[in-house]
């Protein structure tokens, strides 16, 4: 279902989702003929991050993970600066010191990005602690995967958030539901005795919401409720967004197994290859969002393709900018250890 927002906002959400999809497809292609180190992509989870993060306001702070590209793009970090940082260039947001694992932008509400699983749950809780002590009507959001719930930091954080009634939203993107994990030589999937992820929350008395993370409308509604609760002194919320693991993210290194997304497959079923039919027909959240937009008559297919062309051109320009940018002077490695 579409989020209950203005049609203009729906189009902005699509633009943001396409930006993420095209950014990462081009990144995977870029990595095919050069070593840019290990990285993780957000493909398939766009319709969780986009509607959720677009509810935040300036001054609200958010935390992401090693799978951060989509979250930063959804809050407006320029693609070209992100490509530059991922390539280790001087023009990246962190001047090449962090790379893909630590992409952050304070001015866009990402103070730091921990790529240690469970690293950010206490940090996001602490930001909410400061907001409350300073009497600021702001929200802290912690985005993480199901794996972070295996860490002790999770239990310590939610205990503090619950006892102090902190304005923090724990948005867990569960992409382990179908994943085969290490047993099948794939990327790890959850290893938890709990039957439902929300079982790990209920003892603390924090409200939980479980949504289909590929359903933009459901994510928007859940996040809206959580943001309202946080802003009105109601404390923390835990949201489990059940996403799919894109087939290209099952392997240890991302692979463009489903090809560059053909948006026309949203309205022309004959373009769908049988090999990844389930992905294209049922799972791809961006195609699903486009189908919903078309069904609601908010856009024509032609307009979708035009929007896509503009974004694709922006990605090409962003990559060209990053490739043309200089590496930082090596001795700058010694700077910025201290403020």
């Amino acid at each position, binding site marked *: 279902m579409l989020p209950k927002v203005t049609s203009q906002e729906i189009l902005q959400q699509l633009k943001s989702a396409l930006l993420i999809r095209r950014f990462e497809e081009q990144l995977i292609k870029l990595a095919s003929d050069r070593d840019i180190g290990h990285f993780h992509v957000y493909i398939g989870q766009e319709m969780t991050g986009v509607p959720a993060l677009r509810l935040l306001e300036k001054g609200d702070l958010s935390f992401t993970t090693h799978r951060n590209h989509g979250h930063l793009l959804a809050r407006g970090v320029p693609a070209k600066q992100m490509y530059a940082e991922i390539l280790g260039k001087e023009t990246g947001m962190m001047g090449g010191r962090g790379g893909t694992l630590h992409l*952050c932008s304070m001015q866009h509400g990402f103070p730091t990005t921990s790529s240690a699983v469970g690293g950010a749950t206490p940090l996001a809780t602490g930001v909410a602690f400061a907001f409350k002590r300073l009497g600021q009507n702001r929200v802290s959001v912690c985005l993480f995967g199901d794996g972070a719930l295996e860490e002790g930091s999770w239990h310590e954080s939610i205990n503090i958030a619950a006892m102090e009634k902190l304005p923090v939203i724990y948005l867990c993107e569960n992409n382990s539901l179908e994943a085969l994990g290490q047993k099948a030589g794939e990327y790890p999937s959850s290893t938890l005795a709990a039957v439902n992820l929300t079982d790990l929350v209920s003892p603390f008395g924090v409200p939980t919401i479980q949504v289909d993370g590929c359903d933009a409308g459901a994510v928007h509604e859940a996040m809206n409720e959580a943001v309202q609760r946080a802003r009105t002194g109601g404390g923390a919320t835990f949201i489990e967004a059940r996403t799919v693991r894109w087939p290209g993210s099952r392997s240890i290194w991302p692979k463009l197994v489903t090809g560059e997304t053909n948006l026309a497959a949203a309205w022309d079923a004959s373009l769908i290859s049988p090999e990844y039919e389930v992905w294209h027909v049922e799972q791809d959240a961006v195609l699903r969002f486009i189908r919903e937009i078309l069904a609601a008559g908010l856009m024509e297919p032609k307009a979708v393709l035009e929007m896509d062309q503009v974004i694709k051109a922006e990605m090409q320009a962003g990559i060209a900018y990053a490739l043309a940018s200089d590496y930082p002077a090596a001795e700058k490695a010694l700077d910025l250890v201290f*403020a």
Partner: protein
Amino acid sequence: MRTLTYGQALVEGLRELIESDERIHIMGQYFLGLTPQRALVGELAAQHPERFYYPPIAELGYVGVAIGAAMAGLRPIVDLATASFMFQAFAQITNEMANIHYMSGGQTKVPMVFHFNHGIRGGGAAQHSHSPQAMFWNTPGLEIMLPSTPYDVKGLLKTAASTDNPTAWGDHVKLFMIEGEVPEEDYSIPFGVADIKRKGSDVTIIATSLMVQRSLAAAKVLAAEGIDVEIVDPRTLVPLDEAAILKSVAKTGRLVVADECHRSCGVGAEFSAIVAEKAFGYLKAPIKRVVTEDVPIPFSPPMEAFVEPGEAKIIQAVREVVR
């Protein structure tokens, strides 16, 4: 000048910070351990309850909360109580706190202080006696202060709370009752400025924390033997006043290092390496380290005394280097 105990000076520093800067919030209340003076912290907390937070027994969680709060506008001072408990929080200290400013390319600051009571306190055994400062020194991004007097603890604390960097603040439990002069008026001690705790000409002792007090006691004994000891207290390991260390060694030509970390890769090992690299030509004798032996700290009193760097070992080491 008036005289205060170390514990009184520490709590006075906390009080002045709380009353002068509303961003200062205190997490935890075991700054003075379980010593009788701990009531001073309790009084302060009772007077400023809105500025104290009494966290659950979740060091990883609440140190992380302090880091997050520091990024969002507070200046938290967090107490980890016994230094050994900081291992529970190690992931947040070394992998988050210390790295954030650097890996964000300077975008994000973490202005906070975390406090721990280090060292062999007597009967603490292996899990309540750690001196983890060498581990912090091996973690770029942390400033480290190790006061040794009432004057220093208050003055260094003021600086720690005002810098935009995270500071590790270690006190030795055996320092809390010592007395010293502390001025009534406001003052602070800049980081990276060593203090010559005793001027002398025959041998340099670089000492930290409680070992400064033990070295002062040792120097009296040695003076009676005609050995004139100079004691250099770096006060902060990061930043380190290398110039003061090298200057003293250049003058005396002999060095004993007194520190409570374990021998291997300890603070004493680093001081020794710096002097060996940069002042070798001045040395008239091999450097001696008076440090804790490379074993977990045993409980039994004679065993504990055997492994710790006591006053007698300092005296012995100095006699050996001046021989």
